[in-house]
């Protein structure tokens, strides 16, 4: 049993490339949630991307090079937390599989044991069971595939959302079905991806919720882009923004009027 207090425990935030480039507010919301839970948060500048685009395109050489850099950058932290089930899944489940044996296999294993997706870190490791914020209105939650099936994240974000003041969860049908993003899939097979995301936006509409939440920015950008192309006024946000009470920035794909 480790006797350190949370404050002395250091979390390295793996920002994820999409959050870094497209929506910094998710990164700041993540920092706030982790700091509120009593952790010291650091954001190493040497991080880039988890390497999934290369990994899922069959480019193992670049994937391994990126994985080594990421492990080197983060292995000294007590925990590595990412606001994405997909990137956390890559770091936790797929990095160890990249290295057969030897020193790097050991390092990858030790590294991956410390990796968590944000909401599951808060509930399962930090023991957070409520957040002290208010977000009046109805939300529906999309379970992103990697988080759900690789990391078993389903209850954790909902548990935290239930503690938000004024917030009502309206479940959509088939919340566990893929949104059609699939990383490079959505640009390699745009027509198929489109049919899948159309089905998803149908489900979102059926929920009747005013806001769509999920834990992965890739999926959120896909669903937001489709909803907006269809003229929907459903707001789309990352779950961390709501949990941190940081919804003053316009929703994804929107600007201040």
């Amino acid at each position, binding site marked *: 049993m480790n006797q350190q207090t949370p404050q002395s425990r250091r979390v390295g935030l793996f920002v994820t490339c999409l959050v870094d480039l497209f929506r910094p507010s998710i990164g700041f919301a993540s920092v706030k949630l982790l700091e509120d839970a009593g952790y010291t948060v650091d954001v190493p500048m040497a991080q*880039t991307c988890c*390497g999934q685009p*290369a990994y899922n395109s*069959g480019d193992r050489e*670049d994937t391994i090079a990126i994985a080594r850099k990421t492990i080197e950058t983060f292995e000294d932290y007590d925990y590595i937390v990412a606001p994405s089930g997909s990137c956390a899944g890559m770091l936790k489940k797929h990095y160890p599989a990249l290295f057969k044996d030897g020193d790097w296999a050991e390092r990858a294993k030790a590294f991956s044991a410390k990796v968590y997706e944000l909401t599951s870190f808060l509930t399962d490791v930090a023991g957070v069971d409520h957040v002290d914020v208010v977000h009046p209105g109805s939300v529906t939650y999309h379970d992103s595939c990697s988080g759900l099936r690789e990391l078993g994240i389903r209850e954790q974000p909902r548990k935290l959302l239930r503690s938000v003041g004024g917030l009502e969860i309206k479940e959509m049908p088939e919340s566990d079905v893929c949104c059609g993003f699939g990383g490079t899939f959505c640009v390699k097979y745009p*027509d*198929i991806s489109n049919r899948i995301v159309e089905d998803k936006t149908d489900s979102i509409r059926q929920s009747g919720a005013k806001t769509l939440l999920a834990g992965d920015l890739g999926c959120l950008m896909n669903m*937001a882009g489709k909803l*907006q192309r269809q003229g929907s006024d459903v707001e789309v946000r990352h779950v961390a923004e709501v949990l941190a009470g940081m919804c003053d920035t316009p929703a994804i794909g929107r600007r201040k009027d």
Partner: protein
Amino acid sequence: MEIRSPAFKENARAALDDPQLRHALEHVKSGFIVKRAMAAEALPEFEKLRDSSKAIKDETLANLDKYLEAYETKVTESGGHVHWAESAADARDIILKICQSVGARTVTKGKSMISEEIELNDFLEGNGVQPVETDLGEYIIQLRGEHPSHIIAPAVHLARSQVEADFRRVHTHLPVDRDLTEPVTLLSEARKVLRAKYFQADVGITGANFLVAETGTSVIVTNEGNGDLTQILPKVHIVLASIEKIVPTLSDLSQVLRVLARSATGQDMSVYTTLSTGPRRAGDPDGPEQYHVVLLDNGRSSMIGTEFQEMLRCIRCGACMNHCPVYHAVGGHTYGWVYPGPMGSVLTPSLIGVDKAGHLPNASTFCGRCEAVCPVRIPLPKMMRHWREREFSRRLNPATQRYGLKAWAFFARRPRLYRLATSIGIPVLSLFGGRGRFKSLPLAGGWTRHRDMPAPEGRTFMQEWKQREAQKQGARI
């Protein structure tokens, strides 16, 4: 069967534009998924049975040669014949020779995907032997000159009205004013028509869901009973099966059967589970005079010992395609060869070459639902990724993809350069995204054809964070 996998994208486009197909595929989504979930829920040991089924198939594959030889010995002891077919052509020739040796003019057939794989029907017909499919779905497909779009529900892409039209076109000897508005009326009409065929057939050909090494038994599961009539009534029964269908013992069989129907249709068991061991013995009330087993390899043995070996655990339940969002969107014919859906996306490149089937393992979102329901826990996404690795190393994927990826990876491997490039590029991109999103964007046509592209908020997180940390430092000083 003509290989149409290279035209996957065109096939997909046509499928997506077909409203009737879309309607038919809704049934896959609503029917199979709910029924499987209920069946799995109702059996407390279901997850454990998946583990033990996986273990049974793993142990079989680790000693496949031993079990195949044991199986052959037992079949021979019971008076049957085992024929080894290395290729599809070998299997076709063996079957034709058996048919010719008894002067066969018609053969009845139970459902068999291996028969599709070796294109048996066209070959027999071309050699003067008329094949008659007896599974309702297969019968419909045969009338239409099509191929199955699903491994357990071959006609799942069709509407009842289309089948009615086919029956009226072909069954001209029946009254014109008969009622065919209910699926059950179609089934009983097919039954009536097929009944006569069973008695005319000289040879009955079935597939096999399993082959039991311990006893030399072949096993089929059906819901219509057509398989029984196919294999019992004619003088000759030919079992056509691929080599990985072996399980070691009857006890193993009984375990794997418990996950098969539950995963496939949500039934506890299929209506008929039929075990056949050799030809009719003296004193048996019925059964064929000759019993032949044609064991097909067709590239499977070369999967042993590779990263694709686990694919040979597959028991052909169809759960992976029933749960696949890509299959739901485009249907089975889009995949362009015999095996559709996730299992096809792994198996097809092994059997016809990844140069022809390259789209299949790429056309997946890696959502992982297939692996989550596979009764023998085949890591389908992982194996599709292995195919992508082979394509990448053989430079089979498009040059634009490769260069784009390499350019991106160049930066992703160099954090300082990456920071510099993104800290310049992202604010500029954000500036152009005046309304918070783009309707169209150069180089992102694949995205913006169907959806808007959210614009970056402004500066990158790293830029903002650096500034925040610097201000903190400044405040401290």
